[in-house]
């Protein structure tokens, strides 16, 4: 039975409201007061007042917190389901009610409601549909009926211009995740009792952690409909319920299940008992790399190295740069690694800029490399001119068809792709190139490269293969000492 006493989940007086602290701010004949009362009674009955957090929307019910003696949070227009998601993901035990009108939920907030429903957030949504914007002055809502006059459809809603009234219960029912979807009405006592049952069911589902429940309530707005309260209730039965059939769409709340918002690894100290929450020490060890750098690999005197590594995407250009930068750190030096990134990475050319220095590094851009590692022909074409005089170019001579044109620098061809292919993994030509660079420049040391490779490469199974690349490259450089480039030889 509908009780006439004020529910315990309502404030005794509505002190937050200002004037008239014993009455609501709603207009005569409005449905919000009824819905509020049904919700408050259900909260009382389930004994969840302390646990309840009421999310107020933007609209006439923006002041839900005047009335509900629960936790309260007022949300941006249409965003309450996202706010409720945030609340839910923090606290699995709170009872979260998202109370929304038709402009809020079916207009500006369609994305948020659909996705919260689709995630199956364990929350309860009460959607008060009165087919009009109330608070802002009777404008067309997405639920306004065809032909219905509003302040923005003075000639009536026109389907060709404005589209059709949107059935939110039907839309929510199209998703597989929600557990309870029902449309109810406040047109008379019998219907209100059905509403009461739906409100209770939707809340109980949440308490039992069954998942997302959605109750659409057809509710009168006599003032903006320009009707008397009794006319308004008749209009719901005669007209609104024809556009929006009152029925249960889904009652799939069977066994409790792991609803979204009950994540395996939810947050907060409350979950410490689950064993998944890492304490400070475990967190630190998760975030720290599990290796320490030996002191004997430290380097103290080295001229600044500005290395450009360039080639096709997929040649390991970026990871060769990471390997070099990791070698620098292991040697106790400063390092920066800057990729060319974005669309360029997905096919086409790629390059990485690495700076290694004893001093702190200002600009990480390498516009005048001391060394260029050209993994392919286009890279040599693109960057040869930028190398500093006296610098070094190493070219992957397996596929770079020419030597350097400049005669004021050192040029070293190494058939990196062939060497890598012979050892069984073409993809490690980058390691051959980098090792050749190390052998020619004296940094990083072969020991450093060998030490870093296991920590630097993502694919651990290739560790041994990559270490063999290092040996092969060192062997090649030992057997093929650097010679003057063709230009210098001719001169």
């Amino acid at each position, binding site marked *: 039975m509908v009780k006439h006493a004020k529910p315990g989940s309502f404030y005794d007086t509505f002190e937050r409201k200002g004037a008239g602290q014993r009455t609501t701010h709603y207009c005569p004949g409005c449905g919000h007061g009824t819905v509020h009362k049904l919700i408050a009674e259900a909260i009382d009955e389930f004994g969840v007042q302390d646990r309840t957090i009421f999310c107020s929307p933007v609209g006439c019910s923006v002041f839900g*917190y005047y009335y509900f003696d629960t*936790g*309260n949070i007022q949300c941006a227009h249409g965003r309450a389901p*996202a706010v409720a998601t945030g609340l839910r993901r923090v606290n699995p035990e709170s009872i979260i009610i998202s109370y929304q009108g038709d402009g809020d939920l079916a207009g500006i907030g369609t994305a948020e409601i659909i996705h919260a429903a689709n995630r199956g957030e364990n929350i309860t949504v009460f959607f008060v549909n009165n087919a009009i914007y109330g608070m802002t002055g009777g404008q067309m809502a997405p639920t306004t009926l065809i032909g219905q006059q509003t302040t923005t459809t003075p000639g009536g809603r026109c389907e060709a211009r404005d589209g059709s009234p949107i059935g939110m219960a039907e839309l929510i029912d199209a998703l597989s995740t929600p557990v309870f979807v029902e449309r109810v009405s406040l047109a008379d006592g019998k219907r209100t009792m059905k509403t009461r049952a739906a409100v209770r069911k939707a809340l109980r589902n949440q308490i039992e952690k069954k998942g997302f429940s959605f109750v659409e309530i057809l509710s009168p707005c006599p003032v903006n409909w320009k009707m008397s309260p009794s006319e308004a209730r008749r209009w719901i039965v005669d007209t609104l319920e024809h556009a929006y059939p009152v029925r249960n769409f889904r009652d799939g709340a069977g066994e409790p299940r792991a609803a979204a918002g009950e994540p395996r690894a939810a947050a907060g100290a409350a979950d410490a008992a689950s064993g998944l929450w890492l304490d400070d020490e475990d967190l630190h060890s998760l975030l720290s790399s599990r290796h320490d750098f030996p002191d004997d690999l430290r380097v103290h005197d080295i001229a600044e190295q500005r290395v450009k590594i360039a080639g096709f995407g997929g040649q390991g250009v970026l990871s060769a740069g990471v390997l070099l930068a990791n070698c620098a750190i292991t040697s106790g030096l400063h390092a920066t690694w800057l990729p060319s990134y974005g669309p360029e990475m997905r096919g086409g050319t790629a390059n990485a800029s690495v700076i290694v220095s004893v001093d702190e590094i200002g600009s990480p851009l390498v516009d005048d490399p001391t060394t260029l590692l050209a993994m392919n022909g286009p890279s040599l074409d693109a960057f040869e001119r930028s190398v500093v005089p006296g610098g070094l170019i190493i070219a992957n001579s397996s596929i770079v068809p020419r030597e350097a044109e400049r005669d004021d620098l050192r040029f070293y061809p190494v058939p990196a792709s062939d060497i890598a292919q012979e050892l069984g993994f073409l993809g490690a030509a980058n390691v051959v190139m980098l090792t050749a660079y190390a052998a020619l420049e004296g940094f990083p040391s072969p020991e450093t490269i060998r030490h870093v490779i296991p920590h630097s490469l993502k694919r651990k199974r290739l560790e041994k293969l990559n270490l063999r690349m290092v040996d092969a490259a060192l062997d090649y450089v030992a057997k093929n000492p650097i010679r003057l480039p063709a230009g210098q030889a001719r001169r």
Partner: protein
Amino acid sequence: MRQLMKGNEAVVYGALLGGATHFFGYPITPASEIAHAAAELFPASGRHFLQAESEVAAVNMIYGAAGAGARAMTASSGPGISLMAEGISYIAGAELPCVIVDVQRAGPGLGNIWPEQSDYNAVVKGGGHGNYRNVVYAPNSAQEMCDLTYRAFNLADLYRVTVFLLSDAYVGQMMEPVELPERAIHGERKPWALYGDAQSRGNLISSIHMSTAEQGDHNWHLRAKYDQIASEYTDWQEVDVEDAELLFVAYGISARVAISAAQRLRRTGVRAGLLRPRTLFPFPRARLAELARGTVRDIAVVELSDGMMADDVQLAVLDSATVHRLNWLGGEVPTTDLVVDRARELIPMLTTLR
């Protein structure tokens, strides 16, 4: 022990050690590595990661999570930050704490994914509607991406504000060695938050103040809070300013290039220095004014925008030094050479040095 990582990854390391428990993300280049690392490391440490359906939803999830007392964050880039403007305004009005990282790309509109610093006005001046400010950190290295995120949560909680990290595509994408903070810190129970229990039942998170007087009082309260933050938390780095006649002012990736330019000029005999704001709100206005009244004659503001921060520099120094705008747009980051050349074109005291 130093680890090589991208600035974007370093954000997540700093966040977890700084007590972050909730990350709500939406993918966008060049910020996505933050979401990638968060998606791995938040759940792996018992914290929570959720990919939202949009940046609008992400920021409202933060509103809910912060309202429930959690240390919550997100990361995005320009287009996503625009979408978050509404939520950030509500967060400011309701005085919720949170941390947002903006890895700036070029705009307006879809722009491109290369670095600009053109979100400055949107982030530093507020960005959404109403009288409010965000505290804005400006990291210029992977280490600072970690450290400033780590610090951001305490600051956000202390003042109940949004703390931004205003980064850029290069600082986000660049890998550098990072030393992790030694001590993990955590948020405490907040007397105003919603815990779904008897103790917090009377709490209300809201940004509505129906009477003009109440709204006015609230806004003056916010203003006083921002002034207090300004008096306590303005942060910047100085290099070679003691005798500087030419002062570079830059943040983020621009500051990395500007310091190289300043050092190069100093080697040619120019008394050049750098002031790098580490907070953009609050802005080191008083220190700039002081330097401009001292030895500094010319100020070169190096910026990947059309001069947004230079406006603030100009306002700080008025006519006590000449402010030159060295701006690059469209995603180009100038080399040290280009910055030096541009300075020589614009600044009379350098023209004789050619």
